[in-house]
């Protein structure tokens, strides 16, 4: 049996390029270019490494505006066999509930045996989408995964998970949703010819909410959570004093009353 592995990738503003405005001490996000969510590179690597071991097809998916296509191109450049852009105006204002519903339906449509996601996104940082996908489809899930061992005979995927203070090895039946721990799967570089192909000649397939049959179940209206307000947090005031010798640290440390 050929496994179908679907990878969720998302475009986010580049954290590294987000400068700190020295006057306000705040982050200047607006000017940051859009990049692939860094933890999703780990997800791609994990997916491709499963495909190295078992007969598998790897398909990347993203739910986002057409502008997000470059993350799919990057995925194909790295080695994904194909990619799908799930895009629709109806998605506007979706929180994690409709987002994970959409990705769950897309994973079903793609006949996924395994869905691989990143630990969390750097822009919404909830880490809820992968368990959400699993819950919507009633599939097994494996989060904070550091190692993967496919077990095609048993129709299972075995994972080493990071649990507080240690590790566990868990076997899950297919289909399964995996969220890999950030930093555990170092992404392989894209091959030259694949990169040229992905960036210039590849066109991802597109899927709409209508086609997934969820046009009335996505967007702002069905999102249970809403942003009630935003406050800027004053950056913590620190002295920022750099001392010339180690003695300069001794006094302040002694000064700390406990």
């Amino acid at each position, binding site marked *: 049996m050929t496994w179908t592995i679907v990878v969720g990738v998302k475009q986010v503003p580049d954290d590294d390029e987000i400068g700190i405005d020295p006057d306000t001490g705040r982050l200047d996000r607006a000017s940051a270019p859009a990049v692939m969510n860094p933890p999703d590179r780990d997800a791609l690597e994990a997916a491709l490494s499963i495909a190295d071991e078992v007969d598998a097809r790897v398909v990347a998916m993203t739910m986002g505006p057409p502008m997000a296509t470059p993350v799919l191109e990057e995925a194909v450049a790295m080695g994904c066999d194909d990619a799908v852009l799930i895009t629709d105006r109806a998605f506007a204002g979706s929180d994690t509930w409709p987002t994970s519903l959409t990705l769950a339906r897309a994973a079903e449509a793609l006949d996924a045996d395994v869905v691989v996601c990143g630990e969390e996104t750097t822009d919404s940082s909830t880490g809820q989408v992968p368990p959400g996908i699993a819950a919507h489809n009633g599939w097994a899930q494996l989060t904070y995964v550091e190692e993967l061992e496919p077990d095609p005979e048993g129709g299972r995927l075995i994972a080493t998970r990071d649990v507080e203070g240690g590790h566990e090895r868990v076997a899950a039946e297919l289909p399964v949703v995996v969220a890999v721990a950030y930093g555990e799967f170092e992404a392989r570089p894209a091959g*030259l010819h694949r990169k040229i192909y992905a960036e210039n000649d*590849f066109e991802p397939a597109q899927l709409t909410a209508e086609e997934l049959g969820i046009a009335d179940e996505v967007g702002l209206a069905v999102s249970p959570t809403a942003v009630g307000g935003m406050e800027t947090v004053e950056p913590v005031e620190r002295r920022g004093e750099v001392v010339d010798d180690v003695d300069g640290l001794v006094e302040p440390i002694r000064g700390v009353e406990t």
Partner: protein
Amino acid sequence: MSAILDGRVGDAAIEEPNYDGEFDAVVVGAGLAGSAAALTMADRGLEVLLIERGSSPGAKNVFGGVLYTPTIRELVDLEDAPLERYVAEKRFSMLSHDDETALSISPGEWRREPHNDSYTVLRGEFDEWFAEQAVDAGATLVTETTVTGLLREGREVVGVETDRPDGGVEAPYVVLAEGANSLVGEGANLKATESRENVAVAAKEVLEFPNGENVIEDRFRLFGDAGVSYHYFGEGAVGEAFGGGFIYTNGDTVSVGVAYRLEDAAANDQSPEETLNLFKSHPRVAPLLRDARTVEYSAKTIPEGGAESVPDLAHDGAVIVGDAAGLVLNNGVHLEGTNMAVESGYHAGRVIADANARGRTDADALEAYGRALEESFVVKNLERYAWLQETVEEDRELLFETMPTAFADAGAEYFRMDREPKAEHASRAKRAVVDALGGWRGLAKLALRYRKVVT
């Protein structure tokens, strides 16, 4: 696969894409020379692959600078180009450790279109835009990819090798536009490693003025899009080294830097960064930069061997353009590489397109590129100043130490306010210069030696 996706996923991607032979030419480096070559070839219907190691073209490029646009203007519409300011004033200063003697040039003509084809730019923005023009013309750009070597069949260059897996790509023509630090060309023995005395190091910072509006306009006496390029020499600029300092005004920032001979940099055991800091703190420079904050620091090399160190430009299946070919004029008065980079890229592209039409890839066919350069301002200018390096080297102490002080002393003497008659001051001022420069005979010789710089 479900019905809704039938046929739509799985068919799109091809198994193992292969672009060997799909491109007519590969260009190494999306700097000014590379993009000019790519654009020229794409305009003539060639399939071009432009390979850049940076995350975007220009991301890593260090530069003063002033972009000279006579050739680029012919290739693209500069209307939407990210130009910072046009150069309305050029100022040349001699600095001793605490004196300055300066000459400022600001012709009315420079304030009118096309502004003497001299604009300050930030390369991170400009190179990206210029490469985009090549892509719009049909070229294919891949970034974050470093060319590590050339593919060869016998003597013939037939493609490039990159640092990516599956990283070789074959094409009939390769344009080496990798800039001054041309590891690929050197590695493939298409050019010799620049000897130390022919390489300058440069350190540059981009500074911004966080406090206050219109700081740049006020400090440099500017209106609208006008800008300045200030050039400094003498020991107050780069110590005893052969070279100089510069300040260029961008839109909201200024570029400040020093460039001097690598040999001196090594001998002086002072880092380019330290030299730059000393220059920035010169009493005549510091006020221009007061309250500025560094937003970017970079260091780089500049070839300055002149016409003699230009390597063979045409090889079987390959040509060398821009800084990689040593096409920079850096003599203190002029620091020009951008115009030469674009001009050389343009000629190389044109000649390859012609050769391609005739089915030729051999060096003889590509030799037309070298000839075109020789007939252009590029080689003519380099030749014109070829003698300068050596001569300056001989007069180093005189030019960079004695002269700045002598001129400053003369100025101080000439305008001295005391109760002596002016005639006394004038003759003492004259004597200060004449003595310092080796008497009247010395002065006459010096004038003869350097007349070509300005005539």
